[in-house]
């Protein structure tokens, strides 16, 4: 239903753009804005794969341009002073490893009063401090948003509606955002076209307070998560046949309640840029309980901003909740289960620099010293025998807006 609505909205806005592009300033108008990143990352290890959340391909010793490179465009339509629409498409590496454009946002917005705006359609999930512009490298201080937090709940968008209410409070502005909808996000998987995580009955509330150069933001989203994957279905079938059907039921999310809490802030004034964020995912089954945090301190010196980040991530070890004895024919099942339920953690120290080289161009370089656990932290495709040794990541990127 919402997909059909979305298509209709996009079509309608595109058509009106074609018909009325020359309309007067006070009535219909539209504006295009674009952004992009050309990035390259390489690590010093072939034991693990370095990716951004939700990506299939990534960097090992042989580097990759597929991790950070992307290009996006957005059109903002204004029909009347109260009614508008926004469409944003981004081409970047997706969960199947392909580089192709996707409709990131498509929504209609209505300004009900000076303080209240309602939006309807495909919207960005606003759980994180930089959710709205996470893929716009130029808008961000770091080369990429710290994975320890941004990998906790890899959900970018949802279909539904939100309401934003803002109010002057002391010398600042307080904004409350309420959302309701459902989401579906593909899981990185090469063989399965339909592997995805679905979240139904998604609702959330986020509060932002901005005063002077300080911005703090926090909130909670909750929904019912379902895992759709043939690989995990096969594991469940195997467990069922071996008489461990109850373990499979508990391990694989089928409308399991999942809650994501986040809190962050940014201070940016004079020569100092400081930002930090904390996130906690609380669910059951293989999603488990996980938390992450980071702090970044940057120092502005003309067009240069060197920065340092310290970040951590941990996932609770739930393997004793799903006891399948690792004996005889049960061994592969037991290994499969413990892999999904195992604990994990990671710490990263990063040093980087942003250089505003030209008016709409920023060049960045970043070095990450990552210390994952044997489970591989935020890395993927962990090779058997990986012993949890540190991995260094070197990245360069050119961020631009147009």
């Amino acid at each position: 239903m919402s997909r059909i609505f979305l298509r209709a909205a996009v079509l309608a806005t595109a058509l009106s753009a074609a018909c009325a592009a020359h309309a007067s300033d006070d009535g219909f108008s539209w504006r295009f804005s674009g952004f992009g990143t050309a990035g390259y990352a390489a690590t010093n290890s072939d034991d693990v794969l370095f990716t951004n959340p939700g990506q299939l391909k990534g960097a090992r010793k042989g580097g990759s341009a597929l991790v950070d490179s992307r290009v996006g465009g957005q059109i903002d339509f204004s029909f009347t002073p109260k009614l508008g629409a926004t469409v944003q498409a981004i081409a970047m590496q997706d969960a199947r490893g392909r580089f192709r454009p996707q409709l990131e946002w498509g929504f209609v917005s209505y300004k009900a009063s000076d303080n209240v705006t309602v939006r309807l359609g495909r919207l960005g999930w606003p759980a994180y401090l930089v959710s709205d512009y996470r893929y716009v490298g130029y808008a961000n201080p770091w080369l990429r948003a710290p994975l320890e937090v941004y990998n906790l709940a890899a959900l970018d968008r949802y279909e539904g509606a939100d309401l934003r209410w803002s109010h002057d409070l002391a010398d600042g502005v307080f904004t409350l955002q309420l959302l309701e909808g459902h989401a579906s996000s593909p899981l990185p998987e090469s063989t399965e076209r339909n592997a995805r995580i679905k979240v139904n009955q998604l609702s959330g509330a986020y509060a932002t307070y901005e005063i002077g150069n300080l911005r703090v933001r926090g909130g909670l989203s909750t929904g019912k998560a379902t895992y759709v994957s043939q690989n995990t279905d096969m594991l469940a079938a195997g467990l069922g046949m071996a008489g461990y059907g109850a373990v499979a039921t508990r391990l694989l999310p089928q409308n399991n309640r999942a809650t994501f809490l986040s809190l962050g802030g940014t201070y940016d004034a004079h020569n100092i840029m400081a930002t930090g964020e904390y996130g906690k995912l609380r669910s059951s089954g293989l999603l488990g309980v996980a938390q992450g945090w980071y702090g970044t301190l940057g120092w502005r010196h003309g067009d240069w901003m060197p920065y340092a980040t310290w970040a951590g991530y941990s996932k609770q070890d739930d393997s004793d909740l799903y006891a399948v004895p690792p004996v005889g024919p049960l061994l592969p099942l037991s290994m499969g289960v413990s892999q999904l339920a195992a604990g994990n953690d990671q710490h990263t120290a990063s040093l980087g620099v942003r250089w505003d080289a030209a008016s709409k161009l920023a060049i960045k370089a970043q070095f990450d010293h990552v210390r994952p656990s044997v489970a591989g932290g935020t890395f993927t495709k962990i090779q058997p025998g990986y012993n949890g040794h540190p991995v260094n990541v070197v990245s360069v990127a050119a961020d631009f807006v147009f």
Partner: protein
Amino acid sequence: MRSIIRKTVLAAALVLATTPAFAGIAVIVSAKSPAGALDKATAASLYLGKTTALPGGGSAKLYDLPDSNPARERFYQAVAGKSASQVKAVWSRLVFSGRALPPRELANDAAVVKAVAADPTAVGYVDESALDGSVKAAVKLP
């Protein structure tokens, strides 16, 4: 000797007086605008996208100068203590949140004065030397 010094000082004073680069920057509204009470803090909030509300009521329509114009860097430093590129990153955050559109860029001071004079909700900034009777200087920045 003394006359040489005198002549040099005189010459320097003349150079200073005639070089427009030493003039200040004025935040301007239309001469017909009710938004005379616009102050520096409000101008900063408007140009950093924190508000769109004009003190006299209504939404402000903002005008900007191009990057190539040195007044742009001086304006953002003076009004908000931020560099033009820092401000650009701020606006890219707002634009790509689908929340606001950046000030409209016009070619030069004269174009900004003309656009602001014609619209009671418009706000712009220009070098003081470009002021005329059609606009009011609401805030003067050094």
